[in-house]
């Protein structure tokens, strides 16, 4: 018995040893394979060894079925040309927290996406990113493509070096009129005679009537307005966003402690901003009237999307970029009448002043920062690919697809094929092709030399035709608009972010800590101001009390620092010019 027990134990130990050895030898092999190609020429030309398959992990929050880039048509071409494959790793949850955790643990991917200037600053200060200055000198098309951006990107780092590139820039204003206001259900608009809603009073009256006329929708209780406030950017970003709807301010400063006054070229405090106050007051009224969904404060995008897809919400605040997808779902579900369209909103003061809306045109886009980290095994191969992505060949393939399949040339201009148009309403088909799967190589919202945007669906002449459903186009037509952007273009003007988009206070400094505190204060008290006051007078009284507490934090020191940095960086930019 004892002998057989010993034999069994020995077998288990031997099995474990073999298992461990097998795993380690695999790891060694992988490690060797990734080490070997590192011997490259300084010029960036890869040696034969470097052409071994190079798999790079890309963190993604897109819920897609594609696991590796070589499952897509464009990905196959990239693999053929560079033998590089991207492995998409799903990273659900709070991405900003993940970036911080990865930084703390030193476990960041080879190519990293960062979504704000403050986190980028943390990565730069922690010495985790590779400088790209030499690369730019050897990649003329990259330098040309980002000629406006590169000086601004350099300003974003504390040592003046270039560490990043960004997606979504450069932008041609006409291709991307970025207006995200209120998604409104078209059947309710029809019921009330297609009103051109604009003021906050208009919305309250409209939604109250809408809820009265439609107590239920498709068998479920109707909800007045939905907002995903529980997202990390929810209460922090979109509860205060009313400031961008009228004149003066744009979102160039992000949604932290300050707002950017586009007209006077200066930063101002966000919490005390009059439009921010009006925005909170608007939400308070919606809450009091029972229009604002009480689940908004606990709803994340999943719950928000579910309510939108069911059609039971009469309106949605700010998150309107998924309206077309939701509308396709509603059509498929047999409720085409419940489709939504994006409509403008303005506060009372904004209505009175009637100033031109400052529609942000991003010269830099801190939301889609990309960088090569020091964990990159073969940075030269990544740079080689990056340089190619900036060429005409790269840009056209990544954003327009293949000639003959996705576009044809008519009178020297690209014209989307029927297959391309069909794919636009099918996210899976777009991903199978590879569109949107390589944004980390840089995607531009500007025009190609033929005058057509690299992403053809952005062409203003056919944008609505390609991006909206028929029901949406009809609704705009009933409102008397010539296009979905008609009102906004007539009443707004382009507002280039310039240097303002690159400013951030040193996150490790005392002022950086204070900046975080004032943001925290605003986030915590915004919910209180929306929920607690029972009358306008109570709102005013509570607001004054909150502001009195807020002033004790001395937020003006942070605002002053932002303005000082702006002046300093603007002077540096002028010198560079």
């Amino acid at each position, binding site marked *: 018995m004892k002998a057989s027990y010993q034999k069994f134990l020995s077998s288990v130990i031997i099995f474990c040893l073999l298992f461990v050895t097998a795993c380690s030898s695999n790891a060694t092999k992988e490690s060797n394979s990734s080490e070997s190609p590192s011997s490259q020429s300084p010029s960036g030309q890869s040696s034969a060894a470097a052409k071994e398959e190079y798999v790079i992990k890309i963190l993604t929050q897109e819920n897609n079925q594609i696991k590796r880039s070589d499952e897509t048509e464009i990905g196959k071409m990239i693999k053929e040309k560079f033998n590089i494959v991207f492995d998409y790793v799903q990273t659900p949850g709070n991405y900003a927290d993940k970036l911080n955790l990865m930084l703390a643990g030193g476990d960041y991917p080879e190519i990293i996406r960062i979504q704000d200037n403050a986190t980028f600053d943390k990565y730069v*200060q*922690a010495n985790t990113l590779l400088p790209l200055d030499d690369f730019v000198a050897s990649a003329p098309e990259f330098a040309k493509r980002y000629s406006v951006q590169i000086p601004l990107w350099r300003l974003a780092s504390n040592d003046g070096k270039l560490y990043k590139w960004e997606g979504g820039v450069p932008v041609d204003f006409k291709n991307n009129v970025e207006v995200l206001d209120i998604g409104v259900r078209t059947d309710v608009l029809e019921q009330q005679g297609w009103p051109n809603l604009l003021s906050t009073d208009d919305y309250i009256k409209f939604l109250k009537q809408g809820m009265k006329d439609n107590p239920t929708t498709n068998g479920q209780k109707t909800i007045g307005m939905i907002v995903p406030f529980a997202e990390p950017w929810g*209460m922090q970003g979109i509860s205060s966003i009313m400031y961008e709807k009228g004149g003066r301010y744009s979102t160039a400063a992000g949604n932290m402690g300050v707002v950017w006054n586009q007209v006077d070229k200066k930063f101002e405090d966000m919490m005390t901003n009059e439009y921010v106050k009006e925005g909170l007051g608007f939400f308070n009224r919606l809450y009091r009237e029972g229009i604002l*969904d009480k*689940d908004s404060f606990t709803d994340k995008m999943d719950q928000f999307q579910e309510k939108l897809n069911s059609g039971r919400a009469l309106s949605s605040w700010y998150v309107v970029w998924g309206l077309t997808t939701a509308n396709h779902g509603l059509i498929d579900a047999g409720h085409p009448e419940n489709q939504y369209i994006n409509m403008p909103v303005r506060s009372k003061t904004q209505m009175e002043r009637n100033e031109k809306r400052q529609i942000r045109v991003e010269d830099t886009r801190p939301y889609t920062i990309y960088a090569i980290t020091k964990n990159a095994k073969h940075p030269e191969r990544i740079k080689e690919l990056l340089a190619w992505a900036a060429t005409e060949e790269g840009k056209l393939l990544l954003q327009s697809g293949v000639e003959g399949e996705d576009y044809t040339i008519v009178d020297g201009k690209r014209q989307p094929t029927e297959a391309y148009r069909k794919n636009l309403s099918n996210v899976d088909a777009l991903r199978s092709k590879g569109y949107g799967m390589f944004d980390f190589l840089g995607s531009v919202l500007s025009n190609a030399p033929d005058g057509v945007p690299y992403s053809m669906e952005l062409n203003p002449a056919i944008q609505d035709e390609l991006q909206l459903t028929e029901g949406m186009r009809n609704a705009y037509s009933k409102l008397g608009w010539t296009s979905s952007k008609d009102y906004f273009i007539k009443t707004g003007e382009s507002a280039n972010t310039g240097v303002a988009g690159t400013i951030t206070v040193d996150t490790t400094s005392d002022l950086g800590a204070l900046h*975080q505190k004032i943001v925290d204060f605003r*986030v915590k008290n915004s*919910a209180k101001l929306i929920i607690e006051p029972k009358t306008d007078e109570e709102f005013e009284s509570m607001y004054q009390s909150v502001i009195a507490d807020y002033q004790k934090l001395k937020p003006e020191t942070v605002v002053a620092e932002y303005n000082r940095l702006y002046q300093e960086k603007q002077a540096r930019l002028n010198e560079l010019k």
Partner: protein
Amino acid sequence: MIKAGVHPVKRVKSRNLVRNRYLYAMLLPAVLLVFVFWYVPLTGWLIAFVQYRPGIPLLSAKWTGLQQFIGFFTDTDDYVHLIRNTLAINISSLIANMTTAFLFAILLNEIRWRYFSKLIQTVTFFPFFVSWIIIYSLSSAMFATSAGAINETLIQWGVIAEGVNLLGDPRYSWMFMIALGVWKYAGYNSVIFISAISAISSEYYEAAQIDGANRFQRILYITIPGLMPTAIVLLILNSGWILNSNFEQFYLFTNATNWQRMEVLDIYIYKYGLQLLNYPYATAVGIMKTFISLIILMVVNQISKKATGKAIF
């Protein structure tokens, strides 16, 4: 005769060491694990006393002394709601979890049909394996004010006019967290009490039965006193964790409307340490938390020793 130069006690100890060498060898991995994963990381406490940030060597960071510790109490009054929330929720949870597990074990022990007893035990044990993220999703689906199944049903039946906001209303936050903890851990915690009941000699029950004690009296005079030593040990051990909150639970359930009743020390440390990368401040708060926990543990142990004569040290 004792050999010159070797103390008799030392000789007994070394003989004991040799005799039990296999036992000590078996203990060694556990000691090493505890040392490596619990004591070595304590060197990281140095971060609280220097101006550290990721990317710079710890030893070259500027010395700041007790600045972070003082800052916690003087810069803001955050510590007031943090300590209040942490203590209120954790003490209530501890009492609720232990009481329900205690009662549940007693009631389960009284079920004579063993299969039914095992079924109940398995069903109540199951929530322990459900992750907090799933619990959050379920809670959202069940208790959301406008779209939650329970609120929708109650409104449809005319029981309530408006949904109860369990997830967002700070008035319900503590109660809701405690209730979820009870639901999740009752089955798991009761296992310890069930095993303690099985250790009570059946002779006591037989003697009581002969003396005419009914079922309730047997519970009152045999089962409960028999469980008390286990309950006290569990109470003392758990009191050391009284400032430790279940991170996932609070991370998921804290939102913009209930934060003033939900923000606990662990979330605060996470926020400053990992979200804002203010490691020195977060470490200082963590150190204070450790020392307060240690003091609470010692106090509870002493109280127990004096009140019941039972203690763990």
